[in-house]
């Protein structure tokens, strides 16, 4: 096996091209990565993660845009396009290369812009503007090896009628890709964005980073759909900041991946900002689904409400670890955090670790978590009505997701995801 740092090297970052500022940025990150180590499960933020078994050296970094990479082909599965429904814009990347960008005339007239940063001659502050320093080594890798970073801007006061979808397709075996998205929603603007990560049966590695910058009184609904194939590994980071009176709803919906992690950092930086998060996930076979959330309250009168609901079946594992951080300046904070996990077989493992860090007394914070099998009383009640055991179980599992299903942002698209979860729950025997 080659060494990790020989594969993900400064030399590789140098091949990725683009304007000088972007190349410089990548090279600096690649140099930093050259001396960085992968995290170990001993670190708190990676506790319970099977991060030691990643073997990233077995992957090939995605080649530069326009290089000798795989032909993009049809890329977007038809069923996925149908599920996305009516859109303001659609961006498709395949194996780290930008394949297509479509914007409706109405969205264009409203001022929506989609800019591949590889074509921007001047530095774009939005790249890294929310995240700042990468929060871990995978963020650093994304900084170093993102082949086609993209900026999505909704200008001040603009309102988009339909969602914008960014679909990242992974199709070539053994490839490592680093999708990168910056979303900037201007003052008082309103938008819905769906970011999809999808792969087939191939073994792939993806470490996407998304940055969401929600301006004063702006509203963003952001849905992250993780539909990786069974042999894919995904380590996903979303960092968001919400200005005063802004409103952000982040939804995560995850069914795929062999190991799939989502980290979300949501910082409420302006007075009266709201940052809600919801997640719906279902792991089966030997999947490991790993979620880390940070609700950072750094301004007064900010609100965050988190609801993560998941089920694990067969030998699957799930990890949820969440921190509510309330700064000294964030009086009047209202923060809620709820995690519920349903264990559908004996051999699953699930962990739920809520944490609070509060430096102001004038706040309302609550967290709750539950991990357990189907309630025998629920099962008995339905069976005693004459509902067959397998149907009763399906109804209970679907019912378990009912609340979070209604809370996911971009409902028109989230509803399609529901079908995927239903498919996992399975038909009645």
């Amino acid at each position, binding site marked *: 096996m080659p060494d990790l740092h020989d594969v993900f090297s400064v030399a590789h970052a140098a091949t990725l091209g683009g304007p000088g500022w972007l190349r410089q940025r990548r090279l600096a990150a690649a140099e930093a990565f050259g001396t960085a180590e992968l995290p170990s499960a001993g670190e708190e933020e990676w506790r319970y993660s099977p991060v030691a078994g990643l073997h990233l050296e077995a992957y090939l970094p995605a080649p530069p845009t326009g290089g000798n990479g795989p032909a993009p082909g049809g890329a977007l599965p038809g069923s996925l396009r149908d599920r996305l429904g009516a859109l303001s814009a659609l961006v498709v990347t395949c194996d780290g290369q930008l394949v297509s960008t479509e914007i409706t005339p109405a969205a264009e007239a409203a001022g929506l812009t989609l800019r591949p940063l590889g074509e921007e001659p001047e530095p774009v502050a939005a790249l890294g503007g929310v995240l700042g320093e990468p929060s871990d080594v995978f963020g650093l890798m994304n900084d170093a090896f993102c082949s086609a970073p993209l900026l999505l801007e909704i200008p001040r006061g603009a309102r988009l009628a339909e969602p914008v979808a960014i679909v990242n397709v992974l199709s070539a075996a053994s490839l490592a890709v680093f999708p990168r998205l910056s979303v900037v929603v201007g003052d008082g603007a309103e938008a819905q964005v769906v970011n999809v990560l999808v792969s087939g049966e191939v073994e792939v590695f993806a470490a996407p980073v998304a940055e969401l910058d929600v301006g004063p009184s702006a509203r963003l609904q952001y849905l992250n759909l993780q539909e990786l194939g069974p042999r894919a590994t995904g380590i996903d980071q979303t960092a968001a900041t919400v200005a005063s009176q802004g409103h952000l709803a982040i939804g995560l919906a995850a069914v795929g991946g062999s190991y799939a992690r989502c980290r979300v950092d949501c910082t409420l930086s302006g007075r009266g900002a709201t940052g809600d998060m919801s997640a719906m996930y279902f792991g089966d076979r030997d999947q490991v689904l790993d979620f880390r959330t940070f609700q950072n309250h750094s301004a007064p009168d900010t609100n965050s409400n988190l609801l993560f609901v998941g089920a694990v079946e067969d030998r699957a594992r799930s990890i949820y670890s969440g921190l509510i951080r309330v700064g000294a300046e964030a009086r009047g904070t209202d923060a809620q955090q709820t995690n519920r996990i349903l264990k559908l077989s004996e051999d699953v493992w699930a962990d739920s670790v809520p944490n609070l860090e509060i430096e102001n007394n004038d706040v309302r914070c609550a967290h709750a978590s539950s991990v357990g099998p189907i309630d025998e009383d629920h099962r008995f009640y339905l069976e005693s009505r004459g509902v067959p055991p397998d149907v009763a179980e399906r*109804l209970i599992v679907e019912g378990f997701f009912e609340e979070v299903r209604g809370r996911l942002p971009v409902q028109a698209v989230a509803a399609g995801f529901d079908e995927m979860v239903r498919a996992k729950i399975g038909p009645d025997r």
Partner: protein
Amino acid sequence: MSELIVEGLRANAAGEAILHGVDVQVAAGEVHAVMGPNGCGKSTLAHVLAGRHGYTVTAGRALLDGRDLLALSPFERAKAGLFLAMQYPTEVPGVNLLDVLGASLRAAGRAPAADDLGAVLSSEAERLGVPAALLERAVNVDLSGGEQKRGEALQLAVLRPRIAVLDEIDSGLDVDALRAVARRIEEATTEGLGVLAITHYTRLLGVLRADRVHIMIRGRIVASGGPELADELERTGYERWDRPAPAEVAVKLGRSF
């Protein structure tokens, strides 16, 4: 015609003997009341018959139309025609009543068209005074005790079991609701439903005519009779029947002397 036969039923809960040999027979169209003080084992009887987890049957049998109920799963018992109206109906988050009833009827080979089931449910709900809005909610979630009880009667009306065990169906119901529920159950008995109604008040029997009344004390049926037994109970209370068995008297005497 349907018949529930319970013979010599003994059962434990959490290792403690609760039922000490219960005998009762309920034929189609009959209403049997089982009355007894708190803790006498009435609810245990209901749960054991329906097959709820947490109970162990140690002796006796229960037959529904000749089928050994105790060998069946809760679902199979329901499919065989048994219905339990629970004293504290379980809240099942996110699960819709229409889906439950539809699944049950399909499993029983009585698959209704979706529209038909909705119509039946609405008309039964109206008769029982269940607000239409409640039909949209998850089963028993955020309902008052009385609404839950009406919901149990509503399910009974739609599912049309052969034998219904009603565990304190009267508790939580106001006078009007109790009457509506009792009327609906009586109507079902004219179509052949056999009822085992468990209660500790005679209040239910003021509106639901019982063919037989059984008095249950400390896990045994100690007296059975016609409706007049309930009247007697109303005058005297349970104390008259609550005599310790001779062996227990001896122990008590032994302790106090």
